[in-house]
C-alpha cells in the first residue's frame, strides 16, 4: 500500500479499516478493540492482522464465544469512560447480542433522562455472495436501522472504510458499522487525510438526470456498473450512496429525486419490511408530486441464501436486475 501526504493512496477495505483502527488507538488510549479472534488469529477476515503485536492483548482483546456478554461488556466499558470498538465477526451472530444492543445500548440515554451515554462502536461484517449459505449470509444492515437510539452506517467505498471510524468513535452514542465482506479485498483510492465527511451524510457518487439509484454498502459498486450500462442505453442514472442508514439523509435523497423524478432503491437486504420500503415511502411522502413513476426496488430474493452458486447469484441484486428495474421506471 503506497503512502504519501499529498495524493490519495490505494489500499484494500481490509487495510483501510485496519489503518483507521490503528490510528484511533494511537490517538486515544480509551480506544480498544474487543471481539472473537481479533488478536492472535488476526481477525476472521484478517482486518486486525498485526494489531495484537502493536497494541498488546489488553487493547486488542480476544473474547470467548459470548456475543451477548462481550457486546454488553462493551456497553459497560463505554459507560465506564472507555471508547470500545467491539467487533462481531458477522451480522449473523449479532442476533445473539441483540438484547444488549436494543434493550440496553439503544435505550440507556433516553430512559436515564440523558444521564448515561454509550459511546460504543460495533463493527460487523455483513452480506452474502461467498457461498456461505443461510446462516452466514444475512444482510440485516437496513433492518437494524429500525432501532431508535442507534446510529447505523455502512461504508460502500474504501475511502469510507478508512475514514468513517473517526466520526463514529467521536460520536457520544452507539454506532454500528456494517462492513460488506466483499469490500475487504477490494481496492480503492483513499484520501490521505480525513475528508471530514459527517457520519450521517449521503453522497451522490455519480450524477445523472434521468433517474436516481439509491443504495449503500456492497451494492454501491453494482449500481455504478448498472449506471454505466444504462448510460450506454442513453439513460443517465444518478447514484446516491446512503452511507448512513440511521439517520437517513432525506435531503440528499429527495434532492436527487426532485431532479430526476424517478428512483430505484437497491438493497442487498430482503425486501419486505426492509430499508427499501422505508426509502420508497419517504420519497413518496416528501416528493409525491415530483414522481413520474412508482419507486422501484431491487433487493435480495426473500429466502435464506443458498450455498449453490447459481442460486445465490440469482438471489442477489445484479447489474441486470438493476438495469431492468431502471428501464421499467423510465416508461
Amino acid at each position, binding site marked *: 500500500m503506497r503512502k504519501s501526504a499529498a495524493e490519495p493512496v490505494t489500499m484494500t477495505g481490509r487495510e483501510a479499516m485496519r489503518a483507521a483502527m490503528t490510528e484511533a488507538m494511537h490517538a486515544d488510549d480509551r480506544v*480498544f478493540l474487543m471481539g472473537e479472534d481479533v488478536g492472535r488469529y488476526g481477525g476472521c477476515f484478517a482486518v486486525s492482522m498485526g494489531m495484537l503485536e502493536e497494541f498488546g492483548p*489488553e487493547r486488542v482483546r480476544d*473474547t*470467548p464465544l*459470548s456475543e*451477548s*456478554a*462481550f*457486546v*454488553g*461488556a*462493551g*456497553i*459497560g*466499558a*463505554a*459507560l*465506564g*469512560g*472507555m471508547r*470500545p470498538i467491539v467487533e462481531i465477526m458477522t451480522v449473523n451472530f449479532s442476533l445473539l447480542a441483540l*438484547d*444488549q444492543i436494543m*434493550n*440496553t445500548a439503544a435505550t440507556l*440515554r*433516553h*430512559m*436515564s*433522562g*440523558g*444521564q*448515561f*451515554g454509550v*459511546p460504543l462502536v460495533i463493527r460487523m461484517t455483513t452480506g452474502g455472495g461467498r457461498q456461505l449459505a443461510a446462516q452466514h449470509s444475512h444482510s440485516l444492515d437496513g433492518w437494524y436501522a429500525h432501532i*431508535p*437510539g442507534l*446510529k447505523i452506517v455502512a461504508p460502500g467505498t474504501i475511502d469510507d472504510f478508512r475514514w468513517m471510524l473517526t466520526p463514529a468513535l*467521536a*460520536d*457520544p*452514542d452507539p454506532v454500528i458499522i456494517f462492513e460488506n465482506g466483499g469490500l475487504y479485498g477490494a481496492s480503492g483510492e483513499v484520501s490521505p487525510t480525513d475528508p471530514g465527511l459527517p457520519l450521517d451524510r449521503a453522497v451522490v457518487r455519480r450524477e445523472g438526470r434521468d433517474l436516481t439509484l439509491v443504495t449503500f454498502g456492497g451494492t454501491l459498486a453494482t449500481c455504478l456498473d448498472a449506471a454505466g450500462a444504462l448510460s450506454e442505453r442513453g439513460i443517465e442514472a444518478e447514484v446516491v450512496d446512503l452511507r448512513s442508514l440511521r439517520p437517513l439523509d432525506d435531503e440528499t435523497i429527495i434532492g436527487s429525486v426532485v431532479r430526476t423524478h424517478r428512483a430505484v432503491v437497491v438493497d442487498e437486504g430482503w425486501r419486505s419490511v426492509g430499508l427499501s420500503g422505508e426509502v420508497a415511502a419517504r420519497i413518496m411522502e416528501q416528493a409525491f408530486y415530483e414522481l413520474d413513476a412508482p419507486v422501484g426496488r431491487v433487493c435480495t430474493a426473500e429466502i435464506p441464501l443458498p450455498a449453490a452458486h447459481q442460486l445465490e447469484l440469482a438471489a442477489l441484486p445484479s447489474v441486470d436486475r438493476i438495469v431492468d428495474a431502471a428501464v421499467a421506471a423510465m416508461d
Partner: protein
Amino acid sequence: MISLDAETRRGLLRDMVFVRRFEERCAQLYQQTKIRGFLHLYVGEEAIAVGVSRLLRPDDAAVGTYREHGHALLKGVSAEAVMAEMFGRVDGCSGGRGGSMHLFDAEHRFYGGNAIVGGGIPLAIGLALADQLAGRDRVTACFFGEGAMAEGEFHESMNLAALWDLPVLFCCENNRYAMGTALERSEAETDLALRASAYGMPAWPVDGMDVEAVSDTAARAIASIRAGGGPVFVEFRTYRFRAHSMYDPELYRDKAEVAEWKEHDPILTLFDRMVADGEIESDALTAIEEEVDTEIERAVAFADASAEEGVETMLRHLYAEEVGS
C-alpha cells in the same frame, strides 16, 4: 464473624427500616394510582442491599434489577429523587422516563434499574473492565435474582469475569422464586454457590436474612476484589415477603411457607439481637419508624409537587444534544 458495634448496628437497622417503610408507602401509593406500571417490592430482602452497600465506596458502581429501590437508596440516590421517579416526574432520578424499574444516577454510579432478567450482568462486566484497564481499584456490585442464573447472559458474563479477573461482586439474591417458578424448577443444580464456583471463582452462600452476616461476607469479598483477587460470587439466601409484583395472586406458594420465612424478618432479627445485647430499648423501633416516615413523607410531597415533563421534549435525549467528545 466479627460482630459490629452498636452504632453500626443502629445504622443498619435504620437503613433496613427505611427501605421497608419506603416500599410499603410505595404499595399504598400504587393503590392510589400515584405510581403506575410494574412495581416490584424488596420487602424481606432488605438485609442484602443494606449489608452490601455500606461497604461500597462512593466511586464504586452498583447494577441492579427491576427490584432495585433499596439498592438505589442505599447507593446514595435521594428518597426524593427515587420517589419522584416512581411518580414519573421530572425531578425523578431518571427524569421520569424510567419509572420504578429504571432508577439511574450517574453521580452516585448507580447503573440501574434493568428490566431484562440478566441484562444488567454484562454491563457490570464492562464497568469493571473499564476500571481494570484504567488501573482504578473500584469495585462493581452486580445484584440479580437466582432466576437470572438460567439465562445465557449470566453464564457468559461469569466466564468473562473469571477469565479476565474483573473486579465484580456478584450478588445473587436467592429468594427461591422467579415469579412463580421455584428454584427447583428452574435450576438443575440448586446449590448456587457450587454452580458459580465451576467458573473458577470463589463462591459461597450466606444467610441473607442476617444483615450482619451479609455485611461480614461482603466485607471479605470486597476486600479481596479490591486487592485484585478477581470476582467473587455470593449467594444470599433470602425470601420475598410480598407478591412478585402488584399483579401476582401467589398461587405458586402457600401461606405457611411465607409465614415461616417472616419469622426470619431481617429487621426483627437484628433488632431482637440488639435488644438482647442491651444496645437498644425494646420499644425503640416505633421511634425509628416515625423518624423515617417523616423523611419518606417529605419524599412523597416532593414527588407530588414535581412537574410532569411536557410532551414537546419527549424526543430529547434519544441522542446526545451535541455530537463530538
